[in-house]
């Protein structure tokens, strides 16, 4: 057990920051698009990066901006934020066994910056090295948070100057990132069957129902499929 000596925290933090760098470059156009779209929907240029920093979950922020009105429908946006982010419940649960040694006063604030990327990278790192490294995770997260807030802010300021970003195809960056994330999570067709169920339910829901219900119905259908298709219980 004790042959796993933790590396110095500062070195681990830098390692996390260095390894997250390619992800940050991919984030920049998405953050710019979010900032620009938020201002186009009536956000003050300060409010867009504020949302990015406080909420720090890009998918739900795009959904919120998509549903934004003046004044915003707080309840609708809160519910949709929950639906888009309910995956965090299971991500947190998956993380828990790896961080038992870390005291609550450290892990509770650290969870504030748990997102798809920081979670996936630190979990992959823990699998590779045999232990979860909190400073590595925080290095991932610091890079993500600062880049997100900074470039959402820049997008909010530049957006009105550049004009219609959709005309140039920038909004597709969001889809591209999601597809790359899906590719990264792909293990086999069998394991990915629930995703296809999600797609098959979410797409028609989008055509039929207004708002972001397609996220809820698609995700729920996928979960039900995952449950039903899972290997039999051995009792």
């Amino acid at each position, binding site marked *: 057990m004790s042959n796993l000596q933790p590396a110095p925290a500062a070195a681990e933090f830098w390692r996390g920051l260095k390894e997250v760098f390619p992800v940050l470059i991919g984030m920049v156009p998405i953050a710019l698009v979010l900032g620009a779209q938020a201002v186009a929907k009536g956000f003050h240029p300060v409010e867009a990066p504020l949302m990015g920093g406080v909420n720090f979950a890009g*998918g739900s922020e795009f959904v919120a901006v998509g549903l934004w009105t003046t004044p915003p429908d707080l309840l609708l946006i809160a519910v949709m934020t929950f639906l888009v982010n309910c995956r965090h419940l299971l991500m947190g649960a998956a993380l828990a066994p790896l961080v038992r040694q870390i005291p609550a006063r450290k892990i509770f604030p650290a969870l504030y910056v748990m997102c798809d990327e920081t979670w996936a990278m630190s979990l992959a790192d823990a699998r590779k090295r045999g232990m979860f490294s909190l400073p590595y995770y925080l290095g991932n997260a610091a890079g993500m948070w600062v880049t997100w807030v900074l470039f959402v802010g820049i997008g909010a300021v530049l957006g009105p100057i550049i004009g219609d970003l959709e005309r140039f195809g920038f909004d597709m960056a969001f889809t591209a990132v999601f597809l790359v994330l899906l590719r990264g999570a792909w293990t086999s067709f069998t394991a990915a069957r629930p995703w296809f169920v999600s797609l098959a339910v979410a797409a028609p829901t989008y055509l039929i129902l207004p708002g972001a219900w397609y996220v809820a119905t698609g995700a729920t259908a996928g979960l039900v499929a995952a449950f039903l298709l899972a290997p039999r219980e051995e009792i």
Partner: protein
Amino acid sequence: MTVDLWTMLTIAAMGVVTYSTRLGGFLLLRNRHLSPRTLAVLEAVPGCVLISVIAPRFVAAKPAELLALAITLLAAWRLPLLPTVLISIVATGLLRHFL
């Protein structure tokens, strides 16, 4: 365009809801023994939500949008994140302009 109270409250609500999802699963599920079935569901969740959020792209009405999606899909399958994003933006911009 001024900083607005309802906007502030909505952003605060989003922050609270999102943090509750981050903390909730960690606190409520951490001491449970998770069955293979639960683990299979666990593994499928992020993908299910991601694909659901971008599902509208798959039923876009314009051919340019569908073609751009196909190119993005192909790039995402083969290439790292940054080239995929760049190819996707350029292809989408060009297709919207010329189709």
